């Protein structure tokens, strides 16, 4: 059986713990609010670099991309979101060459798994941070990633570097 002093001690320790709880919520009342009011804070909005919002193909200032139309992304895509349509052209010295015609990406079926970006051998595609993708019809979610009239970027800088390295080794 509990004694009367235990009863009192229980009661006062209970009151003390209640008061400490109240003091914590009191402090919480005056903390800075964490809510971000989205459409108003567009200018200051910070979105993590790692956020995968939409697949894009970066083009440089000469309207050139790095996609060789190898189709590895299409093979790796788990739900057929990517469709790489290539065409064959002839170069000046008569060689037949595969070239990217249209890179079709369906945002509506994309699960943002990132497998296409990981497996791309020439780093031609990346995920961008542009997350405002709402449209009124589903057709608008099917996008062509390569721009009109864009070409494959020549790998000159890399070749050049290789030549210089050879020269260096010869002189040495």
């Amino acid at each position: 059986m509990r004694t009367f002093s235990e009863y009192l001690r229980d009661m006062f320790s209970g009151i003390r713990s209640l008061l400490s709880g109240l003091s914590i919520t009191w402090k919480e009342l005056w903390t800075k609010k964490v809510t971000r009011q989205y459409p108003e804070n567009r200018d200051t909005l910070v979105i993590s670099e790692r956020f995968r919002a939409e697949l894009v193909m970066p083009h440089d200032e000469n309207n050139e991309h790095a996609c060789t139309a190898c189709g590895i992304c299409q093979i790796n895509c788990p739900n057929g979101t990517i469709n790489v349509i290539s065409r064959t052209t002839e170069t000046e010295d008569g060689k037949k060459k595969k070239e990217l015609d249209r890179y079709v990406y369906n945002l509506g079926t994309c699960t943002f798994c990132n497998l296409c970006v990981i497996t791309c051998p020439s780093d031609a595609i990346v995920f961008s941070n542009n997350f405002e993708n709402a449209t009124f019809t589903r057709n608008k979610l099917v996008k062509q990633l390569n721009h009109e009239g864009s070409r494959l970027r020549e790998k000159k800088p890399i070749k050049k570097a290789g030549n210089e390295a050879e020269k260096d080794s010869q002189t040495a």
Partner: protein
Amino acid sequence: MLLNYSQPLELNKLTSRIDAALHAALPEFWAVVIELVLVGILLIATYALLAVVLIYVERKITAFFQARIGPNRVGKYGIFQTVADVTKILIKEIIHINRIDKFLFYTAPFFIIGASIMAFGAIPFGQGLQAVDFNIGVLYVISVSSLGIIGVLLAGWSSNNKYSMIGAMRSGAQFVSYELSAGIALMTMVVLSGTMQLSTMVESQRYCWNIFNGHLPALVAFIIYLISGHAETNRGPFDLPEAESELTAGYHTEYSGLQFGFFYLAEYLNMFIIASIGATVFLGGWMPLQINGWESFNQLMWFIPSYLWFFGKVAVLIFFSLWVRWSFPRLRIDQLLNLEWKYLLPINLVNLLVMVILVLTGLTLTDIFK
């Protein structure tokens, strides 16, 4: 004499002018009838308006306690959020449930809201702003607000739903237990002020609020009253009648549309009624802050109209209620009953005895400094 000029915003002059005009223009009977209707309409309008304001305030303060902003889209700072919500609830369909006890099911919300409005009518909102002023006001308020539990039990029973039933039974056990504590805490103050009439109670606290006048036992009674009053409103840590994780929504699970709105309204207004009775009995009601001897200060205080004093005191108590609500986790049913029967009730009984001794031996603050 000076008081006549120093209370520009008081409403009692307006009400007495209307009263005089009605009595001059109409025979006695019709004047009284018209006044009754007017007062009734005013009370119900205030009731609805207060609910709208309270829901908004509650949502805002809740948000602040959780480091959120709260409703902020409908109107500036979201002030019309509850107006939109109320409109929505008014135009919603009342869903008819199969195999319920129809008569009880449809009358239950009226029991709750009726009890709530009846208690609401007895509150002194300000100088001359009290609809019913019984000489047993405290007793009346306690008994009338206890009627609400009948509605809760009826709602739970007639819904033909085990969750509603469990919720109603829990609510019944909780309400009956805590009503006892709240009643005895109020009786302690009745002993102190020597009257049950709410208007004389306010008048007697002109220079010294009851909570100071009765110092230690009054403070204990105040805390016990707050705890048990909070428990009676089925909110905060005592919300196990509608514990949403266990019982979906307790006794009003099966209600929809306006019927649910009635329960919702009554819940918020009960919070207001508990707070306003607390303010009236313990904190001097609508009486402005008055200090004996400081005449000019007292006059200055009267410039703030009495109803603002009342609502200010009530707001403090309501804020406290919300603070408690967002601080503590829900009690288990055994903890709930332990708290009442093993702690609050014995302390309360001893406290009542202490208060009686205090009053009889002349140890209240006004007696000491006479």
